């Protein structure tokens, strides 16, 4: 099972990204399973939010919060702290949206890409970065998830941002 923890602030769409990743993973294949859930609580703009995606090739029975993740995606670098290292599996990745480098993390200027496509948030950019740098889901499947689950008028910009982000990090 692959487990992804999303850290963001209320309004940044961390949970939307968690859902899109789960939808993308299961979009073509009936033998793939996913759960996506938020750290439950009142939704307040600006407050720290966690969301979780669990991906597997068997039904996901464990609905508890992830204790060790394969990937942690941090949408806002003010939420980064050294304690996050304790939440990552060995060989796991910690990806932070940040303009300046952070020791122990892979940083990427997701904000810049979001601005390029006139997006107010970086959630689909971070989804593109995960798709591009880990291959957990293909960029095409992630784009298809956006087409299926985001409002029509913002799909195109988000898909373009997703593709640009994936290109920037893919090797």
């Amino acid at each position, binding site marked *: 099972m692959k487990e992804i923890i999303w850290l963001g602030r209320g309004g940044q769409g961390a949970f939307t990204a968690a*859902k899109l990743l789960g939808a993308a993973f*299961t979009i073509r294949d009936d033998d793939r*399973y996913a759960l996506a*859930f*938020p750290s*439950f609580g009142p939704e307040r703009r600006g407050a720290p939010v966690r969301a979780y995606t669990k991906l597997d090739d068997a039904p996901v*029975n*464990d*609905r508890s919060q992830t204790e060790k993740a394969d990937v942690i995606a941090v949408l806002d670098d003010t939420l980064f702290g050294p304690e996050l290292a304790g939440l990552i599996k060995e060989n796991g990745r910690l990806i932070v949206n940040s303009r300046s480098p952070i020791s122990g993390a892979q940083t990427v200027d997701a904000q810049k890409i979001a601005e390029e496509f006139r997006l107010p948030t970086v959630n689909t950019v971070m989804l593109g970065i995960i798709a591009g740098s880990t291959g957990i889901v293909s960029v095409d499947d992630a784009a298809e998830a956006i087409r299926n689950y985001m409002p029509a008028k913002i799909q195109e910009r988000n898909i373009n941002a997703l593709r640009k982000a994936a290109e920037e990090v893919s090797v």
Partner: protein
Amino acid sequence: MSKKFLSGNEAFAEGIRLARPEVISAYPITPQTIVVEKLSEMVEDGSLKAEYVHVESEHSALSCAIGASAAGARAFTATSSQGLLYMAECLYYAAGGRFPIVMMNADRSTALPWNIYGDQRDSLSQLDSGWIQAYAENAQEALDLALMSYRIAENKAVSTPFMANLDGFILTHTYETVDIPSREQADCFLPPYVTDNRLDLDSPKNMAFSAGPDTNFVFKFREHEGVLAARDVIAETENDFARIFGRQYSGLTENYLTDDADFILITLGSIAGLCRETADKLRREGVKAGVVRIRYMRPFPNEEIAEALENAKGYGVLEKDISFGNEGTVFTNVNSALKKAGINIKGCNFIGGLGGRNISAADIRNAFENIIAGSQKVSFIGIGGDCIG
């Protein structure tokens, strides 16, 4: 059939759309709100033809559903926690009037301290109200229950309202892949509601009347018979469901590896998956572990539980409930089933997840270890204590 990535609330709303309720009474409360929001969107876009009534309280929500059902309509409402408690008076009216209303309850903690997260103290406090009570484990089962609930509730021998319970947040707000049956399949499975138990100008009758000491007793006996009749009707309904939709459910309980199990954990709702995973791990270590998931608390699976535990050495009941001053209510019910069947083995009670606290894999393993050690305690996961009075 189409596949979608949906939350438990959304999946349940899809099931209700397929069930074609004619009246929906709506009053929002977290974590149920999304169900009535989705249904309002479906009514607005014309994909569900129903009278959608905004009411001013939960008491009114269920009163409205009772009125609709008394007019012969298929009725739906939804609630949670304090909302369920506020409508408690009406629960008894609905059951006593034999109105086969379906209500979704998002299982949530009860105040005080105020808390919006999931536990099962709200619905379990209403076991005696005369409603059928089902507990879903995942979003697919939630959708399927929404469809099956009307078939079961509206069966003439049953004629009892149906409460479908989804663990707050853990089910209601978790997204997963769900198969949505086609409209044709759903219509083939669930015919329109036809009843004599309705206001009819051509055949006037007295409804929702009072009954004195001589006859009241008989009505209560009949009400009890109605809930018990659901046992067989649930089995028939699930077989028909499997024939049409290809998914077979297992009646009042779902038993996992219980045939040869020495140590069995009994639970209900969304935590059951983690219990089964833990049983698998223990099996690999040579411990014969099993799990019983209670799917229906009313009618209660006395026979199923006794059969599953017949050859076991010990058991535990894990529940998100406490009846203060005694033990968890599910534990009380399970113990009664075993006593009636003459099964005398050691059992213990784990109270967990109150106010939405996470129950981890380690907690479940620890529960099994307590069962194996022959514990007879009532303990709060993470706090402990021997709370037997």
